[in-house]
């Protein structure tokens, strides 16, 4: 069993708190992404798990054994670095074999494991080459193969795709998912790219300023962000936040009355996904002033304002809305998230 328990980890660099009491549990065989903007502490957390950095306080357990005092090599994990860290003075074969050689594996096992890992990552043709002759994508594969060759219980990856161009990134993402699913390795994957996290993960932990803001299934995080930050960070376009007046526990949206959580004041923030709307005639719909209409081919992207607050919504490509139009929108009430204007935290979903 290789479940990972991150227990109240804190890390300070001098007076600066990079991690403020992080707790997170990752199940055996699960793929969890640490997602957040640059500088939020993802790499620091990963390095603490790997043993390359010491935590100020807190504990990390793998398979119910505390690893916090262990040397990196005794933690039973492998890592893929952001810049790959593929050894330039060794052939691809020796790179992939490195971990096994350090474990003093016999030649037959080294050969078998290297061939297996190379096969998974499609790098057999380059085994005799030196990494500098390889492209970024190929080097990235070598780094992953080196990690998988030791059959780690836990695999840590720090933005492994961020140095690749967009097309290659998409391709590698799909391949990584296939490879890791078949290997069944418990994986922690650091990224600042939300589409990457959404596509790959069983669960995502969204981090912000050294705090985990929300942990959950990608769809759950997308539809019901726990905080304003999460809603704004996930999704393209990001979630819209519209401050609306509340009267008698209800919000008026065009001809509709929307029930809000009970214990709110006279204002609430309506969190709305751009695609959770459809066109409706005024005054049934809520009024939106369209500043710019961008036909994207697959859909129509509208930028404008509702209640004088900026919003971005998405309509089917077949709709004919032009820049400068005023339109009515019917909101999909099941997909509305209500948030507190003060704390920025969301309320549990209401049924009405």
């Amino acid at each position: 069993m290789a479940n990972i328990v991150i227990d109240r980890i804190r890390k300070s660099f001098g007076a600066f708190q990079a991690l403020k009491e992080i707790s997170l549990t990752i199940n055996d065989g699960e793929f969890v992404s640490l997602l957040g903007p640059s500088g939020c502490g993802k790499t620091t957390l990963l390095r603490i798990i790997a043993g390359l950095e010491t935590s100020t306080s807190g504990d990390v357990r793998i398979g119910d054994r505390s690893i916090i005092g262990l040397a990196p090599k005794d933690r039973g994990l492998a890592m893929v670095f952001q810049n790959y860290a593929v050894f330039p003075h060794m052939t691809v074969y020796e790179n992939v074999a490195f971990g096994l050689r350090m474990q003093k594996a016999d030649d037959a096992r080294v050969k078998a494991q290297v061939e297996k890992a190379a096969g998974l990552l499609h790098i057999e043709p380059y085994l005799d080459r030196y990494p500098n002759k390889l492209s970024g994508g190929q080097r990235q594969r070598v780094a992953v193969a080196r990690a998988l060759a030791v059959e780690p219980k836990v695999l840590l990856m720090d933005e492994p795709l961020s140095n690749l161009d967009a097309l290659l990134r998409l391709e590698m993402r799909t391949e990584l998912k296939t490879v890791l699913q078949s290997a069944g390795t418990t994986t922690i994957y650091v990224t600042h790219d939300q589409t990457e996290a959404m596509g790959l993960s069983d669960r995502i932990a969204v981090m912000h300023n050294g705090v985990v803001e929300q942990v959950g299934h990608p769809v759950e995080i997308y539809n019901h962000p726990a905080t304003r930050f999460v809603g704004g960070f996930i999704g393209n376009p990001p979630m819209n936040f519209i401050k609306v007046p509340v009267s008698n526990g209800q919000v008026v949206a065009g001809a509709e009355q929307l029930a809000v959580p009970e214990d709110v004041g006279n204002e609430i923030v309506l969190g709305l996904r751009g695609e959770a709307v459809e066109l409706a005639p005024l005054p049934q719909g809520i009024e939106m002033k369209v500043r710019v209409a961008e036909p994207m081919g697959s859909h129509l992207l509208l930028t404008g304002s509702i209640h004088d607050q900026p919003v971005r919504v998405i309509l089917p490509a077949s709709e004919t809305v032009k820049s400068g139009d005023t339109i009515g929108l019917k909101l999909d009430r099941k997909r509305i998230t209500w948030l507190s204007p003060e704390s920025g935290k969301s309320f549990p979903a209401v049924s009405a």
Partner: protein
Amino acid sequence: MTQNRPWIPYLLILPSVAFLALLFVVPLVQTIWLALSDNGAPSLANAERMVTDINFTRSVRNTFLLTIVVVPVQIAIALAMGTMVAKVGRGRETILWIWTIPLGISDLAAGLVWLSILQNTGYFNSLLFSLGVIGRQASWLSYQTPVALFIAIAVAEIWRGTAIVMVIIVAGLNQVPKEFKEAAEIFGAGPWTRFWRITLPLIRPALQSALILRTVLAFEVFAVVYALGGRNFPVLVGEAYNWQNQNQNYSVAAVYAVLIMIISLAATLIYLKALKVDPERLP
């Protein structure tokens, strides 16, 4: 633009080429001619005179011995210093600064510093005497104590010349991203394995530069030896100096100069071959 006027790059490097030719190539050719001629005709008479001199074999042997002992020790110490200072966070600059002080001391001054320590009335004897190790002044730098003299010179040279090696090696170590060592650590390499299998191969270019520079300089050792041992410890440059100044024989001095140059070139060539740096295998 340069396509229209292809002579511009040549024009721009002309001053430096002319400068080098005037101040380096001309004297070089003159020296070689001086060494290999006698009364205006090509001749090996000077070389013969050099080789048959009683100090020749000793000076060759001493110079090589000193180089073989001093250079590896300097590289090893510099590697140790560079690796240690890489682990230091605050105060790193200060430590480096202190370590490079010997760089700023001329070799003659360095020799005199060590002379004041090791001469009969020097600090070293005073220390040993006050500790009761010796009963009366011992001499370390005379022709009767060749081993002590050799060690004294080697120590002074190591003290004086390690800093430059360290500077080069620290620069080399700085070029190696820390992720290489971290990756090796995660995959199970201990400190020694990391050093031998990762760090050392990756600083190969710096190592090569340091070795070439230090070896060439070691073959040119003179002032420290002169200050500490005088003529008790003949070395190649010392002999060239003596032939030139004491014996007023510029031709034999020139042969020594040519010999030193050949040895240096050969050493450089050997390092370039033996420590071949393949750009393909660098970070």
